[in-house]
């Protein structure tokens, strides 16, 4: 403490320690918060095709095209420890070969300060809904769920599933469109 440099050193070290304590406080004030909100998903149209899957075993596989609406208010999720939300819509179903299949159809990043009221109409899926066989045809129970990663300033990276999902049957034949 007798020279300018030693004072600057201890001042800087002390500030960093206090800043670390503040960041931990920011984490602890939000660590036990429930970050699930109700989500409404509506599927308006499903188209089923049987096409060559060039990524897989070169056989004809099922490819689904889903058109959907999403309505959700994400405002309760945001607080001072949230930088962004990574939303993704996934389809879950079981086939004869696999008990659980999960395919991500669509995603979206909602940054802090952006519009938090989701009101999306007639969205097309971003990614191909390929099955690894012919499990989509006449599948009675395909469940669409919206989930999100909460990206925080400090602390854990929670993975939350929105409450509210939709289950729907797929068409019985290829190249046909089914409306709901």
């Amino acid at each position: 403490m007798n020279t300018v440099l030693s004072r600057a050193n201890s001042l800087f070290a002390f500030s960093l320690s206090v800043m670390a304590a503040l960041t931990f406080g920011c984490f602890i004030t939000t660590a036990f918060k429930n970050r699930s909100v109700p989500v409404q998903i509506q599927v308006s149209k499903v188209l089923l095709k049987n096409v060559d899957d060039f990524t897989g075993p070169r056989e004809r596989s099922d490819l689904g095209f889903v058109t959907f609406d999403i309505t959700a208010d994400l405002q309760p999720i945001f607080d001072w420890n949230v930088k962004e939300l990574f939303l993704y819509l996934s389809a879950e179903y079981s086939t004869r070969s696999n008990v659980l299949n999960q395919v991500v159809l669509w995603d979206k990043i909602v940054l802090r300060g952006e519009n938090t009221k989701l009101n999306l109409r007639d969205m097309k899926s971003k990614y191909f809904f390929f099955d690894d066989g012919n499990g989509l045809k006449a599948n009675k129970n395909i469940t669409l769920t919206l989930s999100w990663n909460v990206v925080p300033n400090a602390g854990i990276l929670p993975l939350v599933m929105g409450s509210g999902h939709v289950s729907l049957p797929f068409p019985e034949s290829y190249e046909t469109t089914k409306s709901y």
Partner: protein
Amino acid sequence: MLSMFKSIPTHMDYKGQKLAEQIFQGIILVSAVIGFIYGLIIEQFGWTVYIMLAGFTVSCLLTLPPWPMYRQNPLTWQPALPEAPVESREKPQENLKKKKHK
């Protein structure tokens, strides 16, 4: 030129150093508490960091330069002895070394 720089007083006395440490710790802690509460209310952690940095700057200005307020309790040295025999010359040097260690 050099003597002009050397004439600028740069040291703090012991009580001044203690005072400087207390001042910067107090300012930073108070700004941290204010920033935390403000950030919690407006839900912006960025403002917590800004207020904290403001406290850091203020305490830098207040305690880094050796202001005269930190030099109000100078050490009282023994008066120089008129005659300096060989033995008594070593003692003040020991004293000096101890002071430097602190």
